């Protein structure tokens, strides 16, 4: 309870600072929370942006597609490099090096390649989400104690059993952490992609409101996006808990 109280207190403090600061600046640029409330109401009543539901749906679908690709490719690539010693030694460091490149430099070429529609957003989300997942698998495999593998073999475990009973539980925390980071980065990739150039989706709406200096609408749209992002992370944490129960 104290934790929740402290959280609410910080939130209230930030809102108060925002309110005071927002009233001090040019109303075209600064929006206090009190002005956001009516804008949010209009937004949710579909008065300011009637295509809000379609935009949310599109963005969520892009995130879903980007994440599905990231998980599939990240797990496949991570396990391949992790299980195969030579491949891991040869290509693992390259993977880590590529991850260090600020991914946004690839975005212009992704737009040229995939166009302004969903495909380029999915590609960008994938590009961001793939690396943490693949690298988490690699790190997780390295965490598996060789001694536990020997114990399992001595007790009659074959390759599949070693994988299921020893490797997966031993690497679970790292793996799930990577899957969670991957999801967060997929969301960022898709939304940033939309903001950098798109015709539809939450990013396009944000761009529109911001371009027309409809600052209150802009803040309201950002809040809706924020709820989507936090929602996806809550979902991921629920999955994390399920996974932990599964290994027990």
């Amino acid at each position, binding site marked *: 309870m104290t934790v929740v109280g402290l959280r609410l207190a910080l939130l209230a403090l930030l809102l108060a600072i925002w309110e005071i600061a927002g009233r001090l600046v040019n109303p075209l640029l600064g929006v206090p929370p009190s002005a956001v409330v009516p804008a949010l109401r209009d937004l949710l009543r579909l008065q300011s942006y009637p295509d809000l539901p379609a935009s949310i749906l599109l963005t969520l679908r892009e995130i879903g597609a980007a994440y599905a690709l990231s998980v599939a490719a990240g797990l496949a690539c991570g396990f391949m490099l992790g299980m195969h010693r030579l491949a891991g030694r040869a290509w693992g460091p390259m993977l880590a090096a590529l991850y260090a490149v600020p991914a946004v430099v690839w975005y212009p070429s992704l737009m040229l390649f995939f166009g302004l529609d969903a495909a380029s957003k999915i590609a960008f989300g994938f590009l961001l989400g793939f690396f943490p997942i693949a690298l988490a698998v690699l790190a997780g495999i390295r965490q598996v104690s060789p*001694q536990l593998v*020997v114990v399992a073999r*001595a*007790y*009659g475990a074959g390759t599949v*059993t070693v994988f299921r*009973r020893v490797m997966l539980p031993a690497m679970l925390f790292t793996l799930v952490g990577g899957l969670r980071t991957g999801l967060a980065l997929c969301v960022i990739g898709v939304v940033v992609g939309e903001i950098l150039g798109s015709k539809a989706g939450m990013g396009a709406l944000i761009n529109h409101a911001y371009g027309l200096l409809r600052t209150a609408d802009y803040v309201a749209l950002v809040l809706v996006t924020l709820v989507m992002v936090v929602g996806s992370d809550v979902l991921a944490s629920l999955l994390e808990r399920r996974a932990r129960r599964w290994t027990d």
Partner: protein
Amino acid sequence: MSARPELIVVEGVTKRYLTSSGPVEALHDVSLTVEEGAFCTLIGPSGCGKSTLLGMLGGLVAPDQGRLLVEGRPVTGPDPRRVATVFQEAGLFPWRTTLQNVEFGLELQGVPAERRRKTATELLGPLGLAGFAVRYPRELSGGMKQRVAIGRALALDAKILLMDEPFGALDEQTRVLMGEWLLDIWRRTRKTVIFVTHSLHEALVLSTRVAVMTARPGRIKATLDLAMEYPRSMESSEMVTLRAKLWSEIREESLRAMR
């Protein structure tokens, strides 16, 4: 011919490892027989291939030459129904409780949950872990962890128990007590134990037979049969003589290993 059948036969076993500085011969022409119900200790300097020999009996390491027979059948791989292993590090699964760790081998053998739980629970008493069924390894002391590992091996109810310096990581006092405890378990279960150690004390107090191994490449240098009654006192004149004899055998090899 002995009255008891020879449960384990090791014949002319040789093993080489490839290292970055060339091939190293770990074992050279090792032969050994162990009767059913024996407590056979392998003792020798570090790196003499004791663990390699144990790994071979457990089916985890294949010999380059020679053969190993358990109950007359050659060892081709891990066979937890006949041979259970306890390692130097307890090697418990940190995400499993005491009970779940003890059940591990039975689980792999497909024993129904209820039955393996019963077997494991019954073991906890003699293991001195009755109150620790649902604790995780990180909550246990070093001696307790090793007892869980021994419990995991005993749960298999295999005839043969391989123990690779099981008390090597424990402090002296715990070690002595664990030895007494193991002796009690062994006498009650009548298992055949192959026990690797560096400790003269453990070898003399526990074993029915001690095999002294040479420095690398490991060979069996001498075997001693110990017929004294348990529990044994280190102060008896017989033990003092044996200790001196054993030490002179080992001392020579340890000196060679140090050079």
